[in-house]
Structures are given as structure tokens and as C-alpha cells.
């Protein structure tokens, strides 16, 4: 009986191993290559950031426009919706249960620290990130990267750096915009429903719930989301030669990996908040 159980457990372990080991190895390989790509990009940023500025700076501005300014309407809509759905109802509920004093803490913990950066990052990923993978993947498949190299232009400097910098600045800016709009709309909704607090009292409560550490951590977190999204996108679009058929698959992989990477970074920041 014991030997049957042992044989069964061994075969089960083997089956599980056979199924998950290749996926695990592939994930580790991807992680290693992504880390190498990140280091190369950081090296390029360190050594060449100020170089060729008349070509690179307009590209950064274009990226900020594409992944930031053009997303203002959709982020505005999301901000208004979140204001009504989350902030407005939270204020309402906290009043009903007589816990209005904790409204600021709840909004800071759930919305300002978590929901706003993730929402801004995911909007940038969905609206611009996917299109960028397709654009870069197609450029790679059609040999435009080799054309840049033939011209003595470093593709990391010309294609990757402006995108990573642009995405980083855009996610930071969109997060701030989303926060302000959500809180504003949330207050208006709650006011319309009979909230007795003045704007000064409401925003003062939120400011009191914020600590000084929130500002650098939020900047690092939102910037980190933008940088991760930019790096993963550029890695999948450019790091290896693609055929046109592979561009679609690369896009799907990019979205999944960006979401996982942002959530992992988020977990790291939760730990930092707990320590701080």
C-alpha cells in the first residue's frame, strides 16, 4: 500500500514538474534577458543622456504627448467615474457608520497609494503600450532597426530611451491628474448628497492622513510603473528579431508581463510602507 502511495506521489510530482518546469525556466530566461535589457538601457541613459539632444529631446516630448497629453480625456473620465464610484460612496458610507474621521486615511491608503498609480499605469499600457509594441515589433520585422544601426544610430538611444523617459513622466503626471480629479469629483458627489464638510475640511483630512514619506514613495512608485511599462514594451518590440506573425503574440506577452511586473513592484512598495 505504502509503495503504491509513494509511486503515485512520485508520478504526480513528475507530472507537475514536467508541466511547470519548462514554464518556470522560460520565465527565468525572460527575466534574465529583461534585466540585461534594463541594464543596457540604464547604461545608455547614463552615458548618452545629454548627447544628440536636438534629436532625442523632441522624441521625448513626442512620447510625453502621445502617452500623457493625449490620454487626458480618458483619464479625466476615469477620474470622474472613480470620484463618484469610490470616493463619493466612501464618504457617504463612512458618514452613515459614524466613522467620518477615518475617511482621509481610507482614501489615502486605498486610492492615493494603490488605486491611482495602478489605474494610470494600466491606462497608459492599454492605450499606448500595446500600440507601441506593435509599432516597434513591426519596425524590427521590417528591418528598420538594422537601418538605424547602418546609419550609426544606437537603437536603444533613439528608440528605447525616449519611450522609457516619456512613459515614466506620463505615468507620474497622469497619476497626479487622476488623483486631483477623482478627489474633486468625489467631494462634489458627496456634497450633492448632503456632505456637511467644507472643501477645506475634506482636503485637510486627506492631507493629514498623508505622511512625508508618501511623496517620495509615490513618485518612485508611479515612475517605476512608467519605466517598467516602457522597458517591457521596448524589450518585446525590439530585443529579438520578430516576424510579422510574431508581433501579435509579443503584444499579448507584453501586456501580461507589464501587469505582473507592476503588481510585483506594488507589493514591494506595500512592504516599504509597512516598514516606514
Amino acid at each position, binding site marked *: 500500500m505504502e509503495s503504491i502511495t509513494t509511486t503515485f506521489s512520485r508520478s504526480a510530482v513528475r507530472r507537475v514538474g514536467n508541466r511547470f518546469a519548462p514554464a518556470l525556466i522560460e520565465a527565468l530566461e525572460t527575466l534574465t534577458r529583461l534585466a540585461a535589457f534594463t541594464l543596457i538601457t540604464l547604461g545608455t541613459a547614463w552615458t548618452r543622456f545629454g548627447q544628440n539632444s536636438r534629436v532625442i529631446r523632441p522624441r521625448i516630448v513626442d512620447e510625453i504627448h502621445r502617452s500623457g497629453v493625449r490620454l487626458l480625456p480618458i483619464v479625466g473620465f476615469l477620474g470622474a467615474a472613480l470620484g463618484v464610484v469610490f470616493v463619493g460612496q466612501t464618504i457617504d458610507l463612512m458618514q452613515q457608520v459614524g466613522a467620518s474621521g477615518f475617511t482621509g486615511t481610507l482614501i489615502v491608503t486605498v486610492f492615493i497609494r494603490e488605486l491611482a498609480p495602478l489605474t494610470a499605469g494600466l491606462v497608459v499600457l492599454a492605450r499606448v503600450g500595446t500600440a507601441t509594441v506593435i*509599432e516597434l515589433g513591426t519596425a524590427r520585422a521590417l528591418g528598420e532597426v538594422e*537601418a538605424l544601426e*547602418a*546609419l*550609426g544610430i544606437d537603437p536603444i538611444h533613439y528608440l528605447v530611451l525616449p519611450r522609457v523617459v516619456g512613459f515614466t513622466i506620463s505615468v507620474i503626471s497622469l497619476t497626479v491628474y487622476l488623483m486631483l480629479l477623482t478627489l474633486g469629483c468625489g467631494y462634489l458627489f458627496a456634497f450633492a448628497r448632503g456632505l456637511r464638510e467644507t472643501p477645506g475640511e475634506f482636503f485637510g483630512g486627506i492631507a493629514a492622513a498623508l505622511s512625508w514619506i508618501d511623496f517620495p514613495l509615490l513618485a518612485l512608485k508611479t515612475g517605476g510603473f512608467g519605466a517598467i511599462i516602457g522597458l517591457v514594451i521596448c524589450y518585446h518590440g525590439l530585443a529579438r528579431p520578430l516576424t510579422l506573425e510574431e508581433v501579435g503574440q509579443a503584444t499579448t506577452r507584453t501586456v501580461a508581463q507589464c501587469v505582473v511586473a507592476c503588481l510585483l513592484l506594488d507589493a514591494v512598495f506595500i512592504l516599504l510602507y509597512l516598514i516606514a
Partner: protein
Amino acid sequence: MSDLPSIEMQDVRVVHPRNPGVTLIEEVGWVVRPGEFWVVAGLQGSGKTVLLETAAGLTPQGGGSVRLFGEEVQGGQRDEGEASGVRRRLGLLFDGNGRLFPSLNVFENIALPWCYHRNASLADAAEALAPLLEYLQLDRLLDQRPGRLGRAWARRVALGRALATGPELLLLDNPLSGLDMAHIRWWRTFLSDASRGHAALGGRPLTLIAASEELRPLLVPGRRFALAHNGRWRVLGSTEDVLSARGDDGVRELLGDND
């Protein structure tokens, strides 16, 4: 002009860029001296394009050594300054539509390498590149996107981009394929101007290498010829040498004498 060979390839194995296990051309031994005009002939799929990309240091070779202007290059490695400096001395015209950047217009495509390497604005480039643009007859197309251009004009834009930085060595992949007679005439004039030296092209004679599927349109005295045929590399020599090797299968096919 330096006496160092512009390109020196020793026992180079030209391999498929996506599948390095597949050899396209064996044992390439080739020395291109400054001012020479070489025609590399071969049928479709013979590996001419990859040979040019290997010579330019863009595709890794399977073995052997490639020297560009005396400096050893290994394709496929990231550009870390020095390689970029060597590449700036050569221009490469890709096959077909020339791999133009679709998000940039014609002028931006041509001006990009000039602006990048000089850290200059497009306005500066417009002034500096005016003689070249006039020579290429591209003045009326400068605002167009590459996607709206026909193959002949797209290739001419790609030529402008390759020439913008004033290269010493110009590699041309199938420059005459798929062109009508008017464009072929223009290209023949350009090749002869570039080979002799022309004010709009920097004034000095360029070292030229043209890959081609046909020998006849490029069979002009003073040029040198090499053949990539059945995975083998052969330096044929001068125009007279090519004509005297008409009995050879590879040469006959490329001269169209089989018809």
C-alpha cells in the same frame, strides 16, 4: 584618402542572420580598396544582401574576420561608440524600398543621420543638405510620407539618407532592380558621378559596392566584379575578365545568356 582597405574579409563564412547554422556563402576572401567600384553579382537567395550586411558589420559572420577601414568588426554586437564611428564612414542602401522610417517624412528620413551625428536641428540640415536634395531631385517630395512613394522614389530617398553623412564607402543592394528606364538612366549617371566624385556628393570619389542579380546593366569598364554562386565566392576581376568567363555557368546565368 587612406591606403587602408575600405573592407577586408578573410575566410568569412556568411551565415543566415536568423539561423547562424545555415551557411550562405563559404570562404569569402575580399579586399576593397578606396575608390574602387565593385559589382557583387548573384542570383536571388545567393546571400548578396547578407554579405553586404556582414561587410557593414550589421550581421555576425559565422567565422573569419571582417575589417572595416582597418578596424575589426563583429556584426550583431551593440554599437559602443567605435563601431558607430566606423559605420558613419559607410552608407548602406537596402534592397526594395530602402527600409525608410514610416513615421518620418522624406526630409526627416534623409536628415535624421545628419542631425543625429551633428546634434543639429532640421533647419540646419535643410541648408546643409540642399545641394544633395537638389541632385537627388527630391525637392517636391520632401513633405511626403514614405508609404505614399513608389519604389523608385523611395529608393532614391533611401539613397539620400545613406549619403547624408558624407560616407566614404557606399554599399548598394540591388539598386537597379524593378526600376523603369528613366530611373535606371538616372542611377547609371549617379553611379558614374559617385565613382568619379561630384560636388553634390561631397566632391571626392566614393568607394562603391553594388550587389545585383544582373551583370549586364553594370558591365562598365573600370569596375571590378565578384560572384556569389551556389554558396561559393569568386572574384572575377575586370569587365574583360567577366566577358571572357562567359562559358562559366554562374556568369552566363547572370548575363542572361541562357535565354
